[in-house]
Each structure stands twice: as structure tokens, then as C-alpha cells.
């Protein structure tokens, strides 16, 4: 009783100087922490903004091309081609017979002199064939088509080029104009920067990602479910858990070597194909999905499992009717992270031959293909200055791809999210 009424303890002086100093110190600490947080946010936002400005600034030029007008008097040079030739299934064959390249070259020489063809991108004449297929009636009249100039002039016109090219730009003056580079969206890799396109690499990435997802998602989810819901807790499962965690941390180049050794050398799958690329990336993505999947499954409240078991659901029904739907948002989050990493991965794909020069888009999983990040890597390595802006443009395409993929995944996640 005495201890409760004991007055020997000094009453706390809440208003005293020492206490005030304490309070001031506490407030200062809070302010410091807040300031540091703001600095951290500003720094990361700044880096991101810098990256975007540089990439978008450079990249947009990649979507544009410098053009010169060429007047082609089709009735005169084609000796009476009729529009009907360029319609229907035989259109492309007839175009080839026509010798369009020579027609275009001669038209250029008439207009720009003997060396006129040097001004134009070597593959530029293909734009004319596209135009004819688009509008066959063009062959009955005199038409003006805009053809891309040679890469040096393109660079000089947009930015700063070699002395010779700058001279040409001055000479041509107003004749030069800028147009949208449709080729960039529909072509594949080429040696001439004016003719390169992203379509092949984009399609390669798409197919590779589909292969990766088809393999890594079901295997990862099933592994996660089994490990969490069925597997006994013993040495072996501990070992498996450690192995999977380590697998997620293995440098990607090593997965490339693994893919090379196993898929190419042992199983003899076709080199450079999206199949091998997808398989290799799936090996890399799977551990990420397993780990996030296990965490998601673990976070499903045990009361739901009990509720289902309590009315006589079998363990399998508990997993597929209750645990998996509730864990799905978490699993999808892990899948987004894994797939985003796989989409941006370059190193392992170099090992399995996806760095080859591939000028035709893949039409299946076994066709030689390349992917966006590898294409970026290859272009950034090119000597020709025309490739600089193409590299940036490819980066924009890659980032957009990533953005769309993530948006889709977030949409799916929100759809499956259960509100409690």
C-alpha cells in the first residue's frame, strides 16, 4: 500500500526546459526524416524524368524520316501497265516482273542527275511498291512519291552530319521534308538504318513472352501451391525452398549457358528460336513466380481453409475453390515482376543465338527470332550514326510494350482482388 502512495518520486515536470528540449528534438528528427524522404523521391523522379526526356527526345526522331520527292511517270516508264495487274493474288509477282527498282532509279536520275540515286536510301524504292499495292490506279498517271534519303543526309538534316552530307542538305534545301517512318513499324532488322524496323523484334519478343508465360506461370503456380499446401515440412522441402530462392538470384547469363547446354546441345532445338529463348527465360522467371506465389498462398487466412474443410471440401477443392482465387492477385503481382524482367533480359538470349541478324519476322516459335532488348543492344553497337535514333526509338517501343503488359496485369489483378 505504501508504495502506491509514496511521494518520494519527484513529480514529472512536463513544462520544464529539459522536457521542452526533448520535444524540440523530436520534432526536428521528424522534419529531418521527412526532408530526406522528399529528397529521395525527388532524386528518383529526376532520374526517371531525365531518362524519359532523353529517350523520347531522341526516339521520336527515329520514327521520322527525311524524304525527297520523286516524280514517276508511270505510263511512260512501265510501257502500259494496267491497275488490274496489281490487284488480287498475283499482284506481288507482277510487281517483281515489272522491274520496279530500275523504274524508280531511272526516274530519280532524270530528276536529280546521274548520281541522283546516291541521295536515296538503297531500299527506298520498296516504298513505291507499297504505294502501288495500296492504290493500283497510280500506274495510270504521273505520280509524285516521297522516298527516304540516304542515312548520312537523314542524320545531317535532322541533326549534324558529315561535311559532305551537310553540303548536300544545303544544296537540296526546301526539297527535303520529314515524313513518318512507317517502315520502322513494319520492317525488321536491316543493314541500312533508313530501312530498319522494329516489327521483327517486337514479334519475337511477343512470341518469346508467350512461351515464357505458358511455361513459367503454370509450373510456378503449381509448384507454389504444392509446396505450401501439400508438401510435408522436412529436410527435402527445406532444401527445395533454399534452391528455389537461390535460383531467383542466379545471374541471368548463367541461365543462358544452361539454355545453350540443355536446350540446344542436348535436346537439339533450333537455334535462335523463340522457343529456346522462351524456355530459357521461363527457367529464370519461374523461381520469382514460385516465391511470390508461396507468399500469396501463405497469406490466405487459415480460417478460409478451415471453413471449406469444415463443410467437407477435399484438400484439392480447398486449394482450387478458395486458396488459389484469393492468392491470385499476389501471384499475378509476382508474375508481372518476373515477366517484366524477362522482357528486358538480354544476356541469356545472346548465349542461345538470338543475337543473329534476322531480317524477316518470325512466324513461329522455331523460326529464328530476336527480341527488343537484343535488337536495342545490336543497334547501339552499330557504327552508322543513323542507328542512334533507331536505338532510342526501339527503347520507346520496348517501354511501351512493358507498360501495356503491366497495365494488363494490374487490370487482371484488380479484377480478381477480393474486398474483405
Amino acid at each position, binding site marked *: 500500500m505504501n508504495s502506491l502512495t509514496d511521494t518520494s518520486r519527484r513529480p514529472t515536470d512536463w513544462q520544464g526546459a529539459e522536457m521542452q528540449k526533448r520535444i524540440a528534438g523530436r520534432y526536428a528528427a521528424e522534419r529531418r526524416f521527412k526532408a530526406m524522404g522528399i529528397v529521395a523521391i525527388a532524386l528518383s523522379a529526376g532520374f526517371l524524368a531525365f531518362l524519359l526526356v532523353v529517350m523520347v527526345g531522341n526516339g521520336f526522331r527515329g520514327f521520322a524520316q527525311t524524304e525527297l520527292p520523286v516524280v514517276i511517270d508511270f505510263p511512260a516508264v512501265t510501257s502500259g501497265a494496267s491497275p488490274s495487274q496489281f490487284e488480287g493474288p498475283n499482284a506481288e509477282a507482277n510487281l517483281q516482273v515489272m522491274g520496279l527498282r530500275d523504274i524508280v532509279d531511272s526516274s530519280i536520275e532524270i530528276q536529280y542527275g546521274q548520281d541522283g540515286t546516291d541521295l536515296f536510301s538503297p531500299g527506298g524504292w520498296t516504298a513505291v511498291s507499297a504505294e502501288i499495292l495500296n492504290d493500283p490506279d497510280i500506274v495510270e498517271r504521273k505520280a509524285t512519291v516521297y522516298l527516304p534519303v540516304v542515312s548520312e543526309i537523314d542524320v545531317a538534316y535532322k541533326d549534324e552530319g558529315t561535311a559532305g552530307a551537310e553540303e548536300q542538305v544545303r544544296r537540296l534545301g526546301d526539297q527535303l521534308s520529314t515524313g513518318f517512318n512507317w517502315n520502322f513499324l513494319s520492317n525488321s532488322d536491316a543493314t541500312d538504318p533508313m530501312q530498319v524496323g522494329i516489327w521483327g523484334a517486337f514479334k519475337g519478343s511477343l512470341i518469346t513472352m508467350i512461351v515464357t508465360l505458358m511455361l513459367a506461370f503454370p509450373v510456378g503456380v503449381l509448384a507454389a501451391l504444392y509446396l505450401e499446401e501439400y508438401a510435408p515440412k522436412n529436410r527435402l522441402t527445406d532444401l527445395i525452398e533454399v534452391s528455389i530462392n537461390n535460383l531467383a538470384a542466379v545471374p541471368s547469363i548463367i541461365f543462358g549457358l544452361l539454355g545453350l547446354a540443355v536446350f540446344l546441345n542436348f535436346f537439339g532445338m533450333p537455334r535462335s528460336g523463340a522457343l529456346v529463348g522462351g524456355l530459357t527465360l521461363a527457367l529464370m522467371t519461374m523461381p520469382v513466380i514460385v516465391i511470390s506465389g508461396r507468399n500469396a498462398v501463405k497469406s490466405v*487466412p487459415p480460417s*478460409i481453409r478451415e*471453413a471449406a*474443410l*469444415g*463443410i*467437407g471440401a477435399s484438400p484439392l477443392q480447398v486449394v482450387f475453390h478458395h486458396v488459389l482465387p484469393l492468392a491470385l492477385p499476389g501471384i499475378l503481382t509476382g508474375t508481372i515482376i518476373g515477366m517484366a524482367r524477362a522482357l528486358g533480359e538480354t544476356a541469356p538470349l545472346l548465349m542461345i543465338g538470338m543475337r543473329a541478324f534476322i531480317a524477316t519476322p518470325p512466324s513461329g516459335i522455331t523460326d529464328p527470332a530476336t527480341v527488343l532488348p537484343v535488337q536495342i543492344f545490336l543497334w547501339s553497337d552499330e557504327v552508322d550514326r543513323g542507328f542512334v535514333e533507331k536505338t532510342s526509338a526501339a527503347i520507346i517501343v520496348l517501354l511501351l510494350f512493358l507498360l501495356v503488359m503491366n497495365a494488363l496485369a494490374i487490370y487482371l489483378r484488380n479484377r480478381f482482388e477480393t*474486398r474483405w
Partner: protein
Amino acid sequence: MNEDQKILEPSESVTMTDSAPTGITNESGTPKMTARNVDVFYGDKQAINDVSIDVNMDAVTAFIGPSGCGKSTFLRCMNRMNDTIPIARVTGEIKLEGEDIYASRMDVVQLRARVGMVFQKPNPFPKSIYDNIAYGPRIHGLATGKEDLDEIVESSLQRAGLWGEVKDRLQDSGTALSGGQQQRLCIARAIAVDPEVILMDEPCSALDPIATAKIEELIHELRGKYAIVIVTHNMQQAARVSQKTAFFHLGTLVEYGETTDIFTNPREEKTRDYITGRYG
């Protein structure tokens, strides 16, 4: 009394009891569930020591006892929910209508449909009210069609006294209901698979007094249709809802008998101490 009585000699670890718990048998016909010499181990630790008890169809049986006395553990043995705990081991014999529920040919899934369970914390599925009820009949194939299922859902909700409150919003999420409604939903969910026994593990401990009263009223109404076993911390509740009471202490069944006898005239000193609030 029959020969079952002989099995119920007090184990040596129970020092304070000098006579066997009595009244384990059912005076009115065969018991729904019988347990004989049940021991439960969690690893090396023994949680239940030699418990034998009969559960009747026409009576609500309450398990009371201080925290950690094993009453919930024993309840969870009765529909094998303890199977989900890898280190749990059950010996002895528990029978549902003469069938050993721990026999290898007993299907656990079917057993849990026949012996339903209501948990301490209301745990509706994060689905619609309708789907919460319909889930059990669906997985067990109890309904022949959509109308049949609707009928089961309505009658289950009606029996649980929830129909009037939710009939206009069957598609709302079950988790959007209040705590007491959720618990009645869980009872309706258990009823929907037409069980023979309903085990309730402290069904009111997370509820306010009004919701508790509704659940207790519901238990009264369900009596006779199902054999009901309820675990409770609340002795008044045991006195209100049950006809039979079993007092557990330190993993043993100390006393089992008519609720009125247990509360007014307990045979064991331990029971009297607990009921009068001397410990627990």
C-alpha cells in the same frame, strides 16, 4: 449403466478425482457419437488424456473448462479437423453411429459433411451470401438443379434465422454482413449440407450480447434436428443452451452429466471450483 462405464476409470495423472465421471451414456436410445479412451498428442505433449463421452441426438452438449484444457482440441477430433495439423496424433476410438471415424475406410471429406463445424471467428467465404450457402451442396452434389439449390439455400437461411435479413441481397458479399449475421451465415452454411452433428467451437466469443442471444436462440431451435456440441468459455451460456455439460480440465474429462446437475450439484470439487469462479 452399461459396461462402458468400466472404461472410464480415472487416469493416474488426475489426482483430484477419486471417482469416474458418470453419465456418459445416453438414456434415450443410442448415442449419435461415442468416444472411448481418446488420447491426443501434439508431438510429445499430450493434450487429451483418456476421454470417453457420448453425444446425444436430442440434447445440446456443452464443453466447458478453463483455457487450454483441451475442449476445443477434443471437439476438433470429432470431425478430424486435427488431421490438418501434421504433429497431431489421435488414439482411442471415436464412432459416428457405430462407425469408427478414424478407420482407414472412413472418408474424411464425407465425415466432415456429416459432422459440420462452426468456428470461433465467423469465417464466411469472400463470395456472395448465396454462394456461401450453395458451396457445400454443390461440391457434394446435393442439389439436382438450380431450383433445388435455391430451395436448399432458402431453407438453410431460414433455419439459421437469417432469411428475413438477407433475402433481398443474396448476391451481396457474405463478408459485408455484421459479425452476428456472419456467424449465422456460417451456421446456415453448415446446415446446408444436411449434417447429423454440428460442432460449435466458441461460436459467440467474437460477438456482442445481442448477436450472442440470437445464436443461442438458434441453437435452441436446432436442437433435436441435429446433435449439437458447443464449446464455450461462458458458463452462463452453457447453462442456457445445453442439456448436457462436460467439464474438461488439463486434458481430462472431469465430469459429464445433466447441465442442471453440473451447475447446481457438481460431484467433483474441481467442477465446483470452476463453476463458482475460483479459477479458470
